[in-house]
């Protein structure tokens, strides 16, 4: 059997395989260059970038929870200009599409970041982070209400010709209207899910373990919720590719998302546990196709659905 076709299209962009990194969990790729074959990725999704530099939240910023972790990084980043100067120029060595996750406090912020990044030619797609649970203002709110999400996506859409992905928050009663609003406003794809809001308490010190009190829950613990949301959005048949994430530790987990309706997947927390998870997932997806005698992985998208 010839090598299975793992490729997938996100807007105009063709990825050689559907495996990406989840924003914020793989730095700028370079941190993992000695531990994983970054160039084997379908795309590299890098950390959230904002207009101005951000210090981020006060520590502790991460805490382990059962089969998961809470993080409250708080969008620490050097700001879009430094990102363009210091970070992006190093990424072409991986020879894969680079997707920058963008965040901000206002629509104007997002638009400005999108415009600047688009001008550089160093970025192949943008992912709108409309769902950061760790920022006081902005981000999270956009992600909870279809009208404001639609407004945000439209404005960014007008500011860039790059393929545009909107990343959805799982902290909602019904994710479908948000997904629909993002697509109607011009999103070429949807990423889901971002983290669930959680708190862990140090019972001896009688205070929250995180400096920020709340954090975002990620890792295997949330996988059933993430698969369910992919399933729901896939059922709405919005006509755009879905990028599934949330607790993917291996190719089997990735297949859960694909069979539920995701066209692509992203690896987040797993990078911390097994730094070459990305490579194992790419290989494992190919093996799955071979074992199941499927030529194109995309033919399996949603195959667990009735």
């Amino acid at each position, binding site marked *: 059997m010839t090598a299975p076709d793992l490729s997938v299209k996100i807007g105009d962009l063709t990825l050689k395989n559907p495996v990406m990194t989840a924003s914020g969990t793989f730095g700028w790729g370079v941190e993992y260059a000695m531990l994983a074959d970054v160039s084997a990725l379908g795309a590299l999704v890098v950390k959230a970038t904002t207009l101005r530099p951000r210090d981020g939240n006060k520590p502790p910023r991460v805490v*382990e929870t059962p089969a998961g972790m809470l993080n409250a990084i708080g969008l620490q980043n050097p700001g879009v200009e430094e990102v363009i100067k210091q970070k992006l120029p190093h990424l072409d060595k991986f020879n894969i599409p680079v997707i920058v996750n963008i965040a901000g406090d206002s629509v104007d912020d997002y638009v400005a970041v999108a415009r600047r990044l688009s001008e550089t030619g160093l970025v192949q797609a943008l992912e709108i982070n409309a769902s950061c649970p760790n920022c006081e203002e902005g981000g999270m709110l956009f992600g909870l209400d279809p009208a404001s999400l639609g407004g945000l996506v439209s404005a960014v859409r007008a500011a860039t010709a790059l393929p545009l992905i909107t990343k959805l928050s799982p902290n909602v009663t019904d994710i479908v209207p948000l997904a629909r609003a993002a697509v109607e406003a011009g999103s070429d794809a949807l990423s889901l899910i971002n983290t669930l809001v959680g708190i862990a308490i140090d019972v001896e010190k009688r205070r929250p373990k995180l400096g920020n009190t709340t954090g975002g829950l990620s890792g295997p613990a949330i996988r059933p919720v993430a698969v369910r949301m992919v399933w729901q959005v896939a059922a709405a048949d919005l006509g755009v590719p879905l990028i599934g994430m949330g607790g993917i530790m291996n190719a089997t987990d990735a297949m859960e998302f694909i069979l539920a309706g995701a066209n692509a997947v992203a690896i987040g927390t797993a*990078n911390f546990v097994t730094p070459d998870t990305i490579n194992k997932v790419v290989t494992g997806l190919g093996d799955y196709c071979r074992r199941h005698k499927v030529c194109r992985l995309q033919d399996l998208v949603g195959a667990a659905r009735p």
Partner: protein
Amino acid sequence: MQNIQAEIIRNDPELDDYSVLELHAPHVAENARPGQFVHIRLNRLQDPLLRRPISIMLAEPHSGTIRLLIKKVGRGTELLCAALEGGTIDLLGPLGNSFPLPPEGKDVLLVGGGVGVAPLIFFADVLQKTPGLRSARGLYGGANENQLAVWTELAGRCEEFYVATEDGSAGEQGLVTDLLAEQLQRGDAQAVYTCGPRPMMAKVAAMCAEASMPCYASLEQWMGCGVGACLGCVVPGTEEAYLRVCRDGPVFPAEKLDWDNVI
């Protein structure tokens, strides 16, 4: 830096709560510098999920072995203390920066508290083995004699060695910072290297600042990736808002840290 399956050659329980693990990890043994750490996966399951950072206590490039000192403080360290000889441990390393080697000149002071003694032992070992470098004086403190794990490992690598326990069950009764005060008064040291509980290190940093003595502190923070990618392990700095313990540290010149907010 590599991801390694290291064989557990020995697991020696120490005192009540400690274990010394000897691992076969040639890549780490050959490349490690004192202050660096390894990031350990606890099992193949998903709970506990995250790796645990553990300082390298000793590295022997010839035998390809490293030693780690583990103190049981929770589930992860408990699993490590119970690790079976002959089994393997999945680790990333060596990670982080290291204690800067002192120039020729006066002796250096190593101030360790509890399990923080581990990287100081490695540092003392390198100082002792490197011709031309000045030797170390070790100061080691703990709540009581049962909290002075592997003290002979430090003592044997230092020219002078002093102990303080809060209850007086070993060495001087008092804090290790009392020992430091005496040493600073002697005025014959060139720098202080410290690792231990934060309140202790904060005190050491303050005393050194007072005495205009260079001070290097090895910090702890809860970690995600261990390789600088997630920005999870930061501590507040003076020049930069936040510094990553896993990549910018774990060793920091004391004056780069905002000790009032290092909680």
